[in-house]
């Protein structure tokens, strides 16, 4: 709870510092502040009506709401937090600079997010990628260029043959997985009956290679290979593209020509803030939705501050949160089972701030992969100006669980020690250090995405987007392409809005 309050203050401070506060709907912000300061939550529940009510003001919900608004229909967005952006959250660095504690990157084929960035008058800049990557395995450190055939993946000669073969095999298998219905892949039964770990062990012999695999799954899924259905992983690869470009593991994992290629000037949350500004009073903050009732051709959504009567509802939050809402009548068992099974990944983002990105002077680009320790991957997260220098690391899966069990100071020391192994002793002396433990966030419960273990997609996958009468589902987890990414969220919002507009 304390963490939440700190985050809230940090956010407001950051927003003020960066001018982002101006982007928030002033009335909504004022209401949110008032609500946050109130000693007791107000008992007065006000009523509103609209054509469409949207639950959640992340990219999916905001996108859906804007599309509904643009079509001339009335819409209200109910957001549990006192901010918008969902898993996209800026962190104020001072001096008008920000870092992202959540969603950060955009890349090629993420067409919908790129279009939205343009539409909202924001812009992108390249992730710093000049110089060598760092790779640490079993105490040995080496540097390499990501312009080679393995891209961001390390060209470790001891694992290279298996790495190349396994990635090629996974890419090939993913081409048979339909992004809109992975449960209908011809081998879906076989692949959803095993984990990625099972498959890797059956298709590789090198323990060094097998130890490298979690370095990919932790940042990508916030999970260990044993937690992931092979079918789900193949779907995720297939989804790492668009309608014109089949997905590949490389496009997902790489920085150069991959999903980490670019960043958003002003931080990714700036886009959500601009969208909220566009929606104005239609966005209601600090108003968690508790109940959704359908009947008599309408839907009633009860939240802490408003009861909204609408013709349709779009639920644009992670499945595990959607499952915590009380529905009347009760949802079909299959939909409910799906929400019970799609838990969020375990991912903590750690970041250290330095006066300058000192690693660049050493010819390093800040990107690293390490099998040793808590941090499996790092990136240079410095602002476009390069000042201050920011390094962030992904701590996912078992490492996130271990890190979260540590005291804050122990965790900080451990991470900075690993940063020092990767980039030198200078990394031990940051001017600031912060982490975001997404699993502890009440209104997210984990990052970066909901993950499916064996059996889930085959049994319940068809319910992921299926509307339940007047309730429609959005959120990056419902996306066909770039599931788990900002682009997927935007796509899902556009699709859900279209569904609703068709029905109105």
């Amino acid at each position, binding site marked *: 709870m304390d963490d939440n309050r700190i985050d809230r203050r940090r956010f407001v401070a950051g927003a003020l510092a960066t001018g982002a506060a101006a982007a928030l709907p002033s009335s909504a912000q004022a209401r949110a502040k008032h609500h946050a300061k109130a000693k007791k939550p107000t008992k007065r529940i006000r009523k509103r*009506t609209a054509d469409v009510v949207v639950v959640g003001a992340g990219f999916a919900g905001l996108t859906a709401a804007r599309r509904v608004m643009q079509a001339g229909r009335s819409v209200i967005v109910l957001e549990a937090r006192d901010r918008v952006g969902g898993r996209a959250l800026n962190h104020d660095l001072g001096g008008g600079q920000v870092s992202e504690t959540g969603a950060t990157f955009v890349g090629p084929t993420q067409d919908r997010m790129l279009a939205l960035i343009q539409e909202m008058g924001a812009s992108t800049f390249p992730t710093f990628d000049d110089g060598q990557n760092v790779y640490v395995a079993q105490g040995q450190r080496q540097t390499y260029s990501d312009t080679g055939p393995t891209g961001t993946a390390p060209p470790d000669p001891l694992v290279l043959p298996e790495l190349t073969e396994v990635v090629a095999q996974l890419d090939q298998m993913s081409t048979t997985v339909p992004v809109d*219905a992975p449960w209908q892949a011809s081998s879906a039964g076989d692949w959803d009956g095993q984990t990625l770990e099972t498959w890797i062990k059956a298709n590789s012999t090198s323990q060094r290679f097998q130890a490298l695999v979690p370095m990919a799954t932790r940042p990508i899924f916030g999970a260990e290979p044993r937690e992931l259905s092979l079918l789900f992983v193949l779907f995720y690869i297939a989804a790492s593209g668009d309608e014109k470009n*089949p997905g590949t593991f490389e496009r997902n994992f790489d920085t150069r020509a991959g999903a980490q290629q670019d960043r958003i000037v002003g931080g990714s949350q700036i886009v959500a803030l601009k969208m909220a500004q566009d929606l104005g009073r239609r966005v209601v903050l600090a108003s968690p939705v508790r109940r959704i009732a359908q009947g008599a051709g309408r839907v009633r959504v009860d939240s802490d501050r408003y009861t909204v009567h609408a013709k349709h509802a779009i639920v644009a939050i992670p499945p595990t949160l959607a499952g915590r809402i009380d529905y009347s009548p009760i949802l079909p068992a299959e939909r409910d089972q799906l929400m019970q099974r799609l838990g969020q990944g375990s991912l903590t983002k750690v970041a250290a701030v330095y006066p300058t990105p000192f690693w660049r002077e050493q010819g390093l680009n800040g990107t690293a992969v390490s099998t040793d320790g808590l941090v499996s991957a790092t990136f240079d997260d410095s602002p476009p100006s390069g000042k201050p220098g920011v390094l962030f690391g992904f701590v996912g899966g078992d490492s996130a669980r271990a890190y979260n069990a540590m005291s804050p100071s122990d965790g900080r020391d451990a991470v900075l020690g690993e940063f020092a192994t990767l980039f030198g002793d200078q990394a031990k002396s940051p001017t600031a250090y912060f982490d975001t433990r997404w699993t502890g966030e009440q209104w997210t419960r984990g990052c970066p995405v909901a993950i499916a273990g064996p059996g889930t997609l085959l049994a319940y996958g068809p319910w992921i*987007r299926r509307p339940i009468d007047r309730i429609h589902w959005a959120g990056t987890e419902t996306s066909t392409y770039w599931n788990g990414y900002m682009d997927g969220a935007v796509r899902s919002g556009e699709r859900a809005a279209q569904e609703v507009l068709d029905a109105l």
Partner: protein
Amino acid sequence: MRRALAAAAALAALAALAPAASAAGQRPRWDTRVLALVPPPGFPARAYVAPNGRIYEGTYENPAGDSVPSRVLEYSGDGTLLRSWTVEGQDLSQGHGVQVATSDALGRLVLLDKAPARAILLDTRTGAQSTYATFADIPDLLGNTPEPDYGVWGPDGSLYVSDYQQGVIWRVPPGGGAAQVWLDDPLLKGGMFGTAGLVLEPDLRTLLIAQGSESGGTGGGDPTTGRLLRAQIQPDGKPGPVTQLWESRPADAPDGIALARSGRVYVALVGPTNQIAVLNPDGSEAERFPQTPFTGDNGSSVPFDSVSSVMFLGTRLIVAQQSYELGDAAHQAILDVEAGEEGVPEYIPPNAGLRPGEQVVKAARAKSRKRAKAKHRRHHRRHHARRHRHR
């Protein structure tokens, strides 16, 4: 000399008919782009452009066989995948696939299914599917089975459906049910390459039919060439005599057809020539794209490979291709080909697809909605009055 003059005059006339040179910023005619690669099970055969501007694509038969049901994918006009639906009740032990033939008065999609041979109404709002029509197996010596391929609405709400294997045109009565053979003519007996594309001409009584080949016919025609044929729906509902508008070149296998407002006819050639043929209103061939047959080189990253259907979306031709022979998933795509001219809008009669009583239901729904709105307004008035009193 007279022949030369006539040819020159014809060329001049053709030039006058040809679409205006593209203005600045517009795409040049025949500019081809990939709209979307169709995900597995692939083999897209017919891209249907609905009146709402969205594109619906059914996955068709995989000649190598598969055991997954067909799906219908919904794309926006710019090629963004929106939704998809799995076809229910298919016989997966048989070669199976669906083509989205048209949509009905309520916006439901009409799917033509191969196994079993039926027409399905798919409500995209609810995902509900229901059988609208069935197509019988007509006993013949070749053992061909029904394969409903393309469908168009007649002015009275009848659905006319071509049968690729059995070489007939079916008529489904308004409201659906068992289809009856409407047109059975020797010119439709194509053997392997049968009766395919079907459109209703702007006079709303002439059906234009694409015939893949005439190998089983009795007209003594070249079995390697296909035809565009015409048959009129006569006032008594029966077909008039079949006439020929155009004969294709060998190995063309004409498939889908699209009508331009100019009167020109665009024909997808699913055969190895891999082209789109453009015909003048009089049936003479005006143009082909690409000019060179067999290469499929259209300038995009996906060459023509079994060009199955063409349909207008604005000035663009939306083209589906199966890569039927090669089975190359990278070629199973919906392509966007700039035509530089607009198509004739599809005719969907007001009772299209409506079963007896469905209009009544629709009217009842409208009445119920009206009542609910009135109730809502009353509620609001009371609510505002209360608020006013409190102040």
